[in-house]
């Protein structure tokens, strides 16, 4: 009953957020165009790399493309629903957080419900389309069960990203400016998105598996689906993205709680 009510409230918040956007009549088409161009260019760069270097660490051109597309789709999914996490510092500065604290509802719910970003669904579409095409070029036809698994990996990947972003942005409770922390992981994310992690050595694989598990977003799922060898194998490989998702969400929730408590006592 309670979660259901929470969900309906979330829906109503979103509706209001959507109306706010409609008020500004933000040019959705232009935005989608921009995002598409940006990703098209990214793919073009990847194509330049892959025509020069046809196989990276034993992964062929279309295998790397598949890797890239999985990340793209998960990132799109995360951005669609968790877009406003990066605004924590903004909300603190302009006093909106105070108003959220005055409402008898979880602050995180109010924050996430501010808005969703349908344009990022375009990225999900782009990623899934690219993944499908890559599989086609690889001559792999996934069955329904495998597609279901792929979608589950996608959700897990979005959760991994969401948890990490939540944890990092919650640092904004202490430092007023949290975007720099997120920017710091940007390069790492780029690398994981574009290249199979193991080409950089075991230390890198460890880093993006155990510390900031970005590899659980695309590297392990792609390896599991394409049957590529990684440091882990078997059922552990198949389950790893879900474990990482659980871990990241827990960590994110924890930092958020600590941050909110600190805000209440310091009012930074």
């Amino acid at each position: 009953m309670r979660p259901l009510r929470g969900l309906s409230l979330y829906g109503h918040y979103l509706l209001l957020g959507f109306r706010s956007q409609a008020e500004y009549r933000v040019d959705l088409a232009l935005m989608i165009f921009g995002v598409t161009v940006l990703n098209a260019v990214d793919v073009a760069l990847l194509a330049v790399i892959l025509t020069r270097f046809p196989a990276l660490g034993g992964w062929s051109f279309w295998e790397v493309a598949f890797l890239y597309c999985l990340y793209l789709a998960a990132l799109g999914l995360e951005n669609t629903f968790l877009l406003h996490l990066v605004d924590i510092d903004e909300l603190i500065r302009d006093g909106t957080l105070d108003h959220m604290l005055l409402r008898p509802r979880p602050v995180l719910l109010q924050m996430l419900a501010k808005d969703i970003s349908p344009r990022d669904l375009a990225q999900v579409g782009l990623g899934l389309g690219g993944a499908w095409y890559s599989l086609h070029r690889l001559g792999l036809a996934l069955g329904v069960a495998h597609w279901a698994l792929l979608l589950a990996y996608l959700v897990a990947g979005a959760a991994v990203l969401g948890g990490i972003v939540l944890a990092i942005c919650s640092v904004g409770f202490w430092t007023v400016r949290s975007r720099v922390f997120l920017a710091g992981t940007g390069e790492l994310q780029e690398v994981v998105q574009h290249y199979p992690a193991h080409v950089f050595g075991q230390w890198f694989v460890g880093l993006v598996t155990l510390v900031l598990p970005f590899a659980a977003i695309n590297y392990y799922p792609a390896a599991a689906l394409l049957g590529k060898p990684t440091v882990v194998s078997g059922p552990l490989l198949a389950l790893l993205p879900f474990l990482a998702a659980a871990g990241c969400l827990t960590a994110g929730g924890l930092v958020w709680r600590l941050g909110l408590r600190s805000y209440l006592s310091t009012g930074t």
Partner: protein
Amino acid sequence: MTSAVGHGGRVLLAFAWQGARTSTAYTTAYWMELLNAAVRVFAVVTVWAVLYRSYPQQFPVTGGQTKTYAAVTQLTAVMLTWWSGAHHRIARQVRDGTLYVDLLRPVSYPFQLLCWELGESAARLGLVVLPAGIPLFVLLGLGPPGSAAGGLLSAASTVLSFVLLYECNFLVGLVVFRTLSLKGVQHAYHALITLLSGLWIPLWLYPGPLAAISQVLPFRSIFYTPAAVYVGYLDGPAAVRACAVQLGWAVVLWLGLEAGWAGTRRALSAQGG
């Protein structure tokens, strides 16, 4: 004339000081920025080291040059923060209506913004790029410039890069006066820079058609030219020619900027902001 220069210099200094203050206003944020720069350079250099090791025959330069090119472009990018330059400032000022404050000042708006950006870039050079870059160069065993002349030319070329990027950003910023929003436009513009400036991939690896397109556009002058001169891939007359092209673009775009701004001002005064 000299007093105008003196005035300009003072404005510049004031803005540079302001830039330094803003970049250090938040302690943790500053240290994080330093760390970010280091991680960024390290990551990109590592990628190219691995690529070189896998396929050395694909490169017209040495492994050392490849890594140095990557480091130089990334550090330049950090210094210029090309992803949030003048166009963002213009968009913000148009949105929250603070533009008129700058228009009231007795210095032309494009020049003010230039000083502001220059101030921030100078501050970032001193506070972030050098402190992060020098240890990284030592640690990763990256090379000095190909030659002394190359080093000097590359430094001059970096200044031109700054001007060129500023001009492009400003021109994109002018679009905001028509659309009132930078979204979309900004993505497309950033895509152009990403693809054609040599920021991520040295242009010498580009296949024919793409290389040809990059030849006729100004973007390659922003990141590719100074870095290619630095590592000595462009050398002697070729290097001088590349810098001359940069200068040419800088002049042409400045004229465009002045014309665009004059038009926008006319439109502004006609509509009353």
